């Protein structure tokens, strides 16, 4: 049993000034609530960290993993969107939530690592990261950058380079919780409701990836609990497409 209706506890942390410090040790973040027997807390020996879930993206392009999952992303620090439960994420709710403009050029910008936007008076930074898993653990990202883990919206962008034009491919997404995804500016996948992340949960209609640069953009909303996503392209048979490369700008403007 998990109480999804629990109260969201929004902790206001101090933004780390040095991104390298975010990878210094095992992650440690109390999701909220008082101490319990055996509970762990932050200590100098166990500082807050993005490791082992993420490593910094490099300037060297990387391919998807063997199963086609895209593991390099620019992630924006979470935008506060308090929700006590995920059951409110109807189709109309998430469309309203995701099509609200939080920062300029929200649906067109391809940010660089370290770029900053201001949302409701709070400065949020983009992070160029490689996930060490097939999925992108947004809860751990938010925790690692000392931002709220519950009641948030995440924005993610990656640049997919195709060696040739690819027709009839599909974007396949799983997310926790609800999410929307765009490929080259076109809406591709909508996952509404109190979602759990299941690979290939929602799949787009047939798409064409251009030769060269393609932009994949996503937004994930979560109330309480874990949050993550996994994204890949699949072919007509549902098999993963792996002859792609991912590259994001790792140098701040």
């Amino acid at each position, binding site marked *: 049993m*998990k109480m999804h209706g629990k109260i969201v506890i929004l902790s206001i942390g101090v933004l780390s000034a040095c991104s390298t410090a975010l990878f210094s040790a095992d992650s440690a973040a109390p999701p909220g609530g008082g101490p*319990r027997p055996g*509970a*762990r807390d932050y200590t100098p020996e166990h500082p807050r960290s993005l490791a082992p879930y993420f490593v910094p993206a490099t300037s060297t392009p990387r391919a998807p993993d063997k199963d086609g999952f895209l593991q390099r992303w620019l992630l924006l620090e979470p935008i506060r969107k308090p929700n006590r439960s995920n059951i409110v994420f109807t189709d109309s709710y998430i469309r309203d939530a995701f099509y609200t403009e939080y920062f300029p050029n929200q649906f067109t910008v391809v940010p660089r690592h370290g770029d900053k936007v201001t949302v409701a008076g709070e400065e949020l930074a983009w992070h160029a990261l490689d996930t060490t898993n097939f*999925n992108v653990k947004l809860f751990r990202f938010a925790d690692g950058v000392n931002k709220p883990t519950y009641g948030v919206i995440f924005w993610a962008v990656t640049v997919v380079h195709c060696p040739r034009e690819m027709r009839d491919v599909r974007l396949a997404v799983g997310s*926790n919780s609800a999410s929307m995804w765009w490929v080259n500016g076109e809406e591709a996948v909508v996952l509404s409701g109190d979602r759990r992340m*299941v*690979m290939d*949960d929602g799949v787009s209609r047939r798409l064409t990836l251009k030769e060269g640069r393609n932009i994949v953009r996503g937004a994930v909303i979560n109330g309480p609990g874990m949050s993550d996503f996994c994204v890949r392209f699949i072919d007509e048979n549902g098999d993963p497409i792996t002859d792609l490369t991912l590259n994001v700008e790792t140098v701040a403007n």
Partner: protein
Amino acid sequence: MKMRILATVVPVTLLLCLPPSARALEGEPFIHDPSTVVECEGKYYTFGTGGGGLISEDGWTWRGGAVRPGGGAAPDVMKIGDRYLVAYGATGGGLGGGHAGRILTMWNKTLNPESPDFKYSEPVVVASSDGVEDCDAIDPSLFLDPNDGRLWLTYGTYFGFIRIVELDPKTGARVPGNEPVNIAIDCEATALIYRDGWYYLLGTHGTCCDGVNSTYNIRVGRSDKVTGPFVDNMGIDMLRGGGKLVVAANGRLIGPGHFGLIDLGDGVQKFSCHYEADLDRGGRSVLDIRALLWKDGWPVAGEQFMGAVFQIHSERKGYALELAVDFVRMAGGRRGGRGAGRSGEPLTPIPLQTLAEVSTNWPDGNIGLRLGDYMLRPHQKWAVTPVTNAGGYLGSPWFKITIAGTDRTLTATADREVVAAPAFTGAPEQLWRIDQLVDGTFRIMPKAVPGCDEPLALTAIGASTPTLAKFDPESDKARWTFRAP
């Protein structure tokens, strides 16, 4: 055990015949996150979140009264040797906002709180989560491997991984040096079962604790090793969200979760679970017990059998159970080689033979039974009806079985045969237990046979001859299907 594949038409046909409101158990079966239903000293027990639980004398009518200390959430219980091992989570999966959890186990010689032997041992912690790691140590489930007697415990919820650890079946404590293994994500209330070389990990997906809007459902993956990887029918690892559906909302029951296997032997398996909301009980969370079927190597919930009008079809020869009365020909229709008729002739519907047309010639007293070609006739159509206020057996009420439109009742006799008695008296020899077998067929047993202590089942001892005999799980003789008449 003999494993057979049953054509999917049978349960589908059955489903079409079911009344729209198949309900869960009788009495006050109100519980959340029930432990696997277990039998102790002739009664059935299950424990739930927060302490306490339910007791049933017969498995059909339930009431409160089970006793479990420790509070917390979602316990499980298993009989090991002559003792009962209870596992429970001391915390509540995010209750209060934290994910630091502890799983404890404790023993008791009996589950009967009125027994002088009723005393729980001091609980011991067997697994935990520190609130930071990718796991929340709640929702334990026990599994005793039938191959080697090793005891395992799975636990966890949506916060991170489902994990498995090994326990010592003698002490209930963690095996020294054993490290947890991650086996699934994005589910909770897991349970392991074993069948035909496969370990099956069942997990509850969806939203808990939201009443009639809870999306709880039970899913499964399998592995040839107890520690996984567990993959579903599409080859998706449960570590990537995989899981084949076992049971979802149905009838007026919403949100099944917390699977617990009840293996009764002889090809009868059932499972306990709770529904987040029973629409007939104000949306309260209730216990249920369902048949468990196996199709193509995967478990799936059987239908809640609550009766209707059926042909009762023997798997031995395919004949239908019928009264041994004169076959009455129907009028109309073409005969012989010209039966196909000529193009353009009017197609006049032929009415079914009615009960009134034939029943006046039936004997007044007991009528013998036989098996014959099903011909849509009144003497072959049986009304199967739950008997109210007569109790039941595990997960179901007793049924009476009568020729539709009459009171002529399937009855076990003292010479271990079956007849159609002229009236239903409510006697034990007229109350029938109908269990769905793992292949989707049914076993039909009288509550009692006069002068006989042995449980007997309706059996096609000959292709055309029914009797009562000891159930043979390896044979089609005592397998029956209920089909639309």
